[in-house]
């Protein structure tokens, strides 16, 4: 068995892979948060709950309608996105223009309601959700076993992040979004229906979270609290990346995931706090975050 810095190679690669998978979720979630924050100036605390909703939507679609993974991958984000649109129209839209902290508190309350309700209905324990047959099994890479499903998650999340990035950077809708992020009033004064844009953006962000939730379902259990602990790590990722930046959210997500994986190899005790330590250092050196601009 070969070793790298005294660590067996399979362990190293294995942990990097696991880090990459975690990083995929960090990236997808912080991307959604960044998009929502950029335009709505709201820290979407319900993001974790929406991720959980995505997983549950997949689970419920399977158990009550017999709808499988692939269709759920499309339907769950649509459902959750629709729920988010309703939330934005009925609640968040009343908070525009007042202190953004109220948005944080409102979405925090929403997260509690969603998680509490699902916990009440389904218990705190997770529900199993099987990976689709096409993606079960593992590849023997020689130095390690790679579960095919986990490989798929990494690829899928890269595609999703890239797709979202292209949508924002290269399309007309994306141009509205970027411009409105800088100066929403002016964009509206040009005749763009900004309220609609806000609604759609919130829906899109939530749908991204839900999509991540569906991807996560076969790896972790489908459980009411799956999002609530993740979301705080994602907050830290976002602070490190710099709040405004889409690219920052994506890159930081993956990088911190991998760093966390490496910590598991070299100093496992610190693995759960390494992201926060990095956050503290970044705050000291660059308060606006690695990719952020001082506001």
């Amino acid at each position, binding site marked *: 068995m070969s070793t790298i810095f005294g*660590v*067996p190679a*399979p*362990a190293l690669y*294995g*942990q990097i892979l*696991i880090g990459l998978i*975690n990083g995929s979720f960090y990236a997808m979630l912080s991307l959604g948060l960044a998009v929502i924050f950029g335009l709505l100036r709201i820290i979407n605390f319900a993001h974790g709950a929406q991720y959980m909703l995505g997983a549950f939507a997949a689970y419920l679609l399977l158990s009550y309608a017999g709808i499988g993974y692939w269709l759920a991958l499309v339907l769950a984000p649509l459902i959750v996105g629709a729920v988010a649109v309703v939330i934005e129209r009925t609640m968040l839209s009343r908070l525009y223009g007042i202190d953004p902290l109220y948005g944080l508190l409102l979405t925090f309350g929403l997260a509690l309601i969603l998680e509490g309700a699902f*916990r*009440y209905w389904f*218990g*705190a*324990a*997770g529900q*199993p959700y099987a990976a689709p047959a096409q993606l079960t099994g*593992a590849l*023997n890479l020689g130095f*390690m*076993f790679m*579960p095919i*499903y*986990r490989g798929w998650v990494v690829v899928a999340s890269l595609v999703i992040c890239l797709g979202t990035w292209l949508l924002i950077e290269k399309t007309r809708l994306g141009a509205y979004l970027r411009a409105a992020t800088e100066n929403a009033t002016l964009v509206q004064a040009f005749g763009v229906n900004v309220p609609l844009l806000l609604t759609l953006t919130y829906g899109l962000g939530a749908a991204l979270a839900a999509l991540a939730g569906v991807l996560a379902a076969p*790896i*972790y*259990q489908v*459980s009411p*609290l*799956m999002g609530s602990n993740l979301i705080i790590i994602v907050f830290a990722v976002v602070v490190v990346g710099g709040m405004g930046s889409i690219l920052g959210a994506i890159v930081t997500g993956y990088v911190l995931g991998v760093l966390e*994986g490496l910590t*598991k190899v070299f100093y*496992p005790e610190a*693995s759960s706090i390494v992201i926060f330590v990095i956050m503290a250092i970044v705050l000291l050196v660059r308060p606006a975050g690695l990719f952020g601009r001082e506001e």
Partner: protein
Amino acid sequence: QQASDGVVKIGILNDQSGVYADFGGKSSVEAARMAVQDFGGKVLGVPVEIVSADHQNKPDVASSIARQWYDTEKVDAIMELTTSSVALAVQGLSKDKKKITMTTGAATTDLTGKQCSPYGFHWAYDTHALAVGTGGALVENGGNKWFFLTADYAFGYSLEEQTSKFVKSKGGQVVGAVRHPLAATDYSSFLLQAQSSGANVIGLANAGLDTANAIKQAAEFGITQGGTRLAALLFTLAEVKGLGLKAAQGLTLTEGWYWDQSDENRAFAKKFMDKTGRMPNMIHMGTYSAVLQYLKAVEKAGTDATEPVAKLLHEMPVQDIFAKNGKVLPNGRMVYDMYLFQVKKPEESKSDWDMYKQLAKIPGDDAYLKVAESGCQLTQ
């Protein structure tokens, strides 16, 4: 003959929504009710009442519920107490409050060891029994290098400690251990760590869904294909059912009761099944037995006062559907026979709940620690 405040109230305090909900949960409340019914519904001429609460596996939640039950709701005894951290907390509080607890859901030997109580009873399995049963079986089959995946609380520590001791006493070695929080979701990095340690057995010193998830993920990462074996040190019928025979087949495990062992068991199990939709495991049965025995002791003592009842509980032999010839040690440990089972292959299973092959019977005196070894100070 007197029962204080005109009712005998028994509290069932357990996990009803968390990772351990399947061990006992709401079905255990049903088991307790069955015991009351089988006893006749009344004791000393007053009704027997069962109350229950979900402690969410949090010792602070559990102890404040218990405190309030004792202080304001006239609860006389508390049973089940899933999870060692909770059981230790509530047993400690009850000791101060001079109230009886009968633990069936928690495993740590500390309940009848360092932290034993004159009013605390440990009524079902414990970590020593699991180490001897499941641990022993694996060591015998050549598992001599162990790596532990340990739940980060009293139960995990105790199970790891008992099993390590046992493994070492048989000439094996322990090459490492990692601790994970309760209800961790992803075990893959711990499993990789275990795999790279060169161990040939990964001891899962956790329980419930935690164990089930670890087993699933071990399969995903090809760990068992590599020849490393998994020791699910605490696994009951409920988890086997949840995991499915396909994934669970071949696992060896230790339990104190199985529905298919005798006609009597089958008959009881059917009744239970009708009420709850599932077959009982040793925890449901332990709670049933604890309630029953408590009521017997109250009846015999002629009062529900703690001291005389506790004294009788220590003295009376246990003879019911759960424990044959059970006896209670001075430290509160109820000693009865345990069994080593192996999970059947799917093709061997003839019905929905037909899951175990019995490998061996572990006599109670082997399964449980002697009072002298337990470290309980009460009895010296």
